[in-house]
């Protein structure tokens, strides 16, 4: 069996999910200039929500994506109104600390509710896989891959074809210019915060069927979406997708050839290099926060 090909396929499948997972984070960062360190905990919130619906309403995690999306949207707007609207008037660094406080709050609240045990959502199609040529493909991973791509593409269409989507991109590029043409930035901020959080919650559903989770997994996920945003750059969906696939390649190949323990270190080392030599990322374009 060709190991290289198998690793390549694994990276592609994981990269699709990573892209979708990170796209909300990159959107919030690019438009609101908020680096939300609680984003990973949002994903975990979505995973627990879908676990809850699966257990008590018998709803499949794939079918409950709309529920997670809607809940996340409302949650994002609420948090934006209560916390981040006030925080955005402060220095960016204060916003970092605030979002970390939110992360501590969410993960510990989940720990009170669900305890620290590893939970998993055991869907009936969980263990299946098939052979394609010489490559083993897990059905769940393929399903998650396809859904991630579809959802990311839907977001792409929304941002490029609808008025609201274009307004979001306009605010990301030039806040003052957007105001001049009649766009209300504070409304766009709310929508973007809602949309970004909705994406994080929905990717929680997918995360939950891919692997087990605990209340404290959010931190590592935040590091990952952050890595993806830096590697790919900000400002465009394509950047998050590029970053997502790149991180997946780095992780899969370095953990195979160097050992599981090294994958995060390798990814971070690449990222520090990117930050110092090309802070915009591979495909990053100009966005409002950078112009400040």
């Amino acid at each position, binding site marked *: 069996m060709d190991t290289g090909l198998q690793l390549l396929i694994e990276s592609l499948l994981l990269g699709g999910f990573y892209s979708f997972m990170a796209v909300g984070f990159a959107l919030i960062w690019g438009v609101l200039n908020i*680096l939300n360190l609680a984003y990973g905990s949002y994903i975990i919130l979505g995973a627990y929500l879908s676990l809850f619906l699966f257990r008590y309403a018998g709803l499949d995690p794939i079918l409950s994506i709309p529920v997670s999306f809607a809940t996340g949207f409302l949650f994002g707007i609420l948090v934006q109104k209560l*916390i981040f609207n*006030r*925080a955005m008037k*402060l*220095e*960016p*660094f*204060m916003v*970092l*600390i*605030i979002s*970390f*406080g*939110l*992360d*501590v*709050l*969410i*993960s*510990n*609240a989940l*720990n*009170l509710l669900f305890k620290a045990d590893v939970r998993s959502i055991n869907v009936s199609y969980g263990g299946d896989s098939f052979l394609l040529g010489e490559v083993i493909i897990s059905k769940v991973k393929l399903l998650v891959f396809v859904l991630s791509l579809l959802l990311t593409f839907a977001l792409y269409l929304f941002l490029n074809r609808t008025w609201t989507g274009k307004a979001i991109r306009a605010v990301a590029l030039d806040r003052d210019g957007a105001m001049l043409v009649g766009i209300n930035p504070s409304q766009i901020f709310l929508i973007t915060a809602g949309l970004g959080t909705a994406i994080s919650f929905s990717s929680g559903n997918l995360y939950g069927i891919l692997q087990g989770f605990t209340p404290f997994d959010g*931190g590592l996920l935040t*590091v990952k979406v*952050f890595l993806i945003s*830096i590697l790919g750059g900000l400002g465009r969906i394509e950047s998050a997708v590029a970053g997502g696939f790149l991180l997946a390649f780095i992780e899969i190949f370095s953990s195979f050839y160097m*050992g599981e*323990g*090294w994958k*995060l*270190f390798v990814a*971070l*080392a690449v*990222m*520090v290099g990117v*930050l*110092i030599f090309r*802070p915009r990322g591979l495909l990053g374009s100009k966005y409002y926060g950078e112009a400040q």
Partner: protein
Amino acid sequence: MEKLSKLVLVLTLLMYPLPLILSGYWERVLASVFMLTSLTYAQNVLLGYTGYPAFGAIAFFGVGGYATAILMIKAGLPFGVALIVGGLVASLLAFAIAPALMRLKSHYFAITTLALQIALAELFANLDITGGAYGINLPIYRGFLGTQIFYHIFLSILLGSFLVNLFIEKSRFGYALKAIREDEIAAESSGVNTVLFKSVAFGIMAFITGLVGGTYAYWITYIDPESMFDPLLSVKMFVALLFGGVGTVAGPFIGAFSLELVSELVWSKFVELHGVVLGVIILLVILLLPGGVLKSRSG
């Protein structure tokens, strides 16, 4: 301000004989308060006076702790020597990376230091010399004063870092740092070697942080990447600094004492709620008191 600084100095000196009457429990609580206060003073040099938020500064706590432990265990150095060398290792690392790192501004700087912290934690979890994910066991200290010695070491680091802050507040060196904080380009054009001064400030911060890490390592006698690169400790020191007042001499003392004592009281009463309460405290401190209890004198 002047009076507050004197008060801090007197209080600090008064705490030296306290272990004579304190219970073991309060001795440990105060030692951890001193630890947080020293870390906060170290951060004040960089964020308060120079204006650079090193969100991952706890990386140097880890480096100092690991260097001290390795020098004691593998090289057989006595604790005192290992501790100083450990602090120097942390500050040399900081000094070496500062010119590249400090080209970045605001949250890009904050996050790159955070990446450094996580990367070092991952590196130490994989190397043999650091004991991998298992970590390093240190011998229990049984010499002069017993475990009380750590109370005194932390208190002395606190005193030293307070004096460093006082010096920066008053000296030409401090004026240069403040000039960088207010307007780096203006500082550069009026003849301040900004790269050098920023790097020195970064190195001082790392030295103090490394000393605290080294003392902590010997105090708890067991270190692993998770405890030495703990983001929660990092955030606690920033919240303490922001609560007390950034860029003031008394602020870190006030902030760290109130935060750690409150946190300790909550911890002992509601062990389960501790994390939730800490999260709420962080949110409230920043949202309600963004300038801190003591507002920084601008300029």
